[in-house]
């Protein structure tokens, strides 16, 4: 049973952070102006700043964050491992490889390159880890290996690329929401609800699967089918987020665990994971957008990477105490 109060607090924190992110920046907007703009009653600079510039960015942070949170919960549940998240098992690195190849070889189709790279990597990890069945720990270990190989390939690709291409690729590879547009938000806003519905339909058998293959099968769960659908949804959710925002680390890794602990849920908790993911990425992007002294804007991926390091240390300490 998850506690309803933290869940409510999480859901309320989202609009607060969103409004904050919409109002803050080089061109501060007052709350009445902001609400007016959102209601479609503004023009001129306020409209430009709020609707054209900041809204896509905040919207993408929330939706990509939610997608990553869900993907992380799916992968961690299926691998039965808190480290089994898409960024750890190589989907991010693979998506980056795809994007790099697209930038260097072809007409710069970064998005489709990233999508394809992520899917191919997922398939490779799946096939390499498969041995008459899927074992969580093996999947994670194979994933870490594949991730390292893809990262090595990425470094090599970056070094061989022309300077402008390499610079552009590195910016994308850091994971950034700078310059997000409404055109990017559209597909995300359409796809996320559909995928989230899929997760909702699959949630009950997926959670039952955490009891082990034998027990859940004896309780009537079609184990192989549920696992395949769960992995498929997780891969698509990751690819969607990565293709729009670049490879963002840590959110998929930490959001499910933080969400579960906050709400006191057991096993995979998909709604808390989605809410926490959205909140984490929106907060990280708020920091990224403000920049640091000396760097006017930093990629949100850098912020999440730092958070990720801190999180991993905390997780290790927690596990060590068990």
């Amino acid at each position, binding site marked *: 049973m998850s506690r309803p109060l933290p869940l409510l607090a999480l859901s309320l924190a989202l609009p607060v952070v969103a409004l904050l992110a919409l109002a803050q920046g080089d061109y501060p907007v007052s709350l009445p102006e902001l609400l007016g703009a959102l209601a479609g009653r503004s023009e001129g600079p306020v409209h430009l700043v709020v609707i054209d510039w900041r809204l896509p960015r905040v919207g993408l942070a929330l939706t990509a964050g939610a997608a990553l949170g869900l993907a992380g919960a799916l992968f961690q549940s299926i691998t039965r491992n808190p480290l089994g998240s898409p960024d750890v098992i190589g989907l991010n690195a693979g998506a980056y490889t795809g994007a790099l190849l697209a930038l260097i070889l072809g007409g710069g189709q970064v998005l489709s390159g990233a999508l394809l790279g992520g899917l191919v990597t997922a398939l490779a990890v799946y096939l390499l880890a498969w041995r008459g069945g899927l074992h969580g720990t093996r999947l994670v270990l194979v994933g870490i290996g594949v991730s390292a190989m893809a990262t090595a390939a990425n470094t090599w690709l970056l070094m061989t690329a022309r300077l402008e291409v390499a610079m552009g690729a590195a910016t994308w590879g850091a994971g950034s929401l700078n310059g997000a547009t409404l055109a990017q938000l559209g597909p995300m806003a359409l796809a996320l609800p559909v995928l989230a519905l899929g997760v909702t339909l699959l949630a009950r058998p997926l959670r039952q699967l955490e009891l082990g293959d034998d027990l859940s099968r004896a309780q009537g*769960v079609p184990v192989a089918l549920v696992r395949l659908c769960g992995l498929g949804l997780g891969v698509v959710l990751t690819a969607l987020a990565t293709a729009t925002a670049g490879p963002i680390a840590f959110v998929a890794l930490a959001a499910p665990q933080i969400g579960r602990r906050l709400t006191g849920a057991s*096993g995979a908790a998909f709604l808390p994971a989605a809410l926490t993911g959205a909140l984490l990425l929106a907060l990280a992007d708020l920091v990224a957008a403000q920049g640091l002294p000396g760097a006017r804007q930093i990629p949100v991926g850098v912020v999440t990477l730092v958070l990720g390091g801190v999180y991993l240390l905390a997780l290790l300490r927690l596990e060590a105490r068990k």
Partner: protein
Amino acid sequence: MTDTPLIAEGLVLGYDGKTVLHDLSLRLPGGQFTAIVGPNACGKSTLLRALARLLTPHRGRVLLHGQPLERIAPRQMARQVALLPQNPIAPDGITVRDLVARGRYPHQTLLRPASAGDATAVEQAMARLQITDLATRRMADLSGGQRQRVWIAMVLAQDTQVILLDEPTTWLDIAHQVELMTLLAQLAREGRTIVAVLHELNHAFRYADHLVALRDGRLMAEGAPSQTVTPALIEAVFDLPCVITPDPLTGAPMVVPHA
């Protein structure tokens, strides 16, 4: 109850080419407590998994109330037969009540997730295993024996006619073992068909109505303990020279090993 809910006919099965069960035929009597005994790695868990349809036999078949297992829908099967595997996994952070409630899965659907009937079944199962006062504790914080009782409560909450248990007494102290044996015998008297893999032979002989002895995937004996247990059988199954004496309280056969 005289029917035979589970019948295995000429089961041949194993893993990756290695045959574990060799042409095994069994009849598990309804409303009785069957104990499966045998040395380590003789195929007891494998047999239980086959009875629960987790393994497809290479040859032979298992019948549930006369129907071949492969013709029964997963949910229907799960409403009739429950299995507690040897090594179940508790999800992270789960509490006792939540885990017991997971046993209600086959009775729920997406549109009807949990009902008052589910809650009653969960509370009753916890009461029978005397873990009601642990209900809000986390599994990770319990002792091995407490956890084992939670798992058994979960299987009980599934409310099936047939219950298959793989070494349910592991981790339990002697008093709790006896308590569980009594509970299993009582469940059988209430009409359920109980099949348990047991290593404690004297408990098996005393509490079970029906005994199945395996060695190297072959059936060595089948029948009431008082009629099947002999020193020769124990030696043949376990390579253990022993004498059999009647248990002073019940007269059930009791194994006393030599040396």
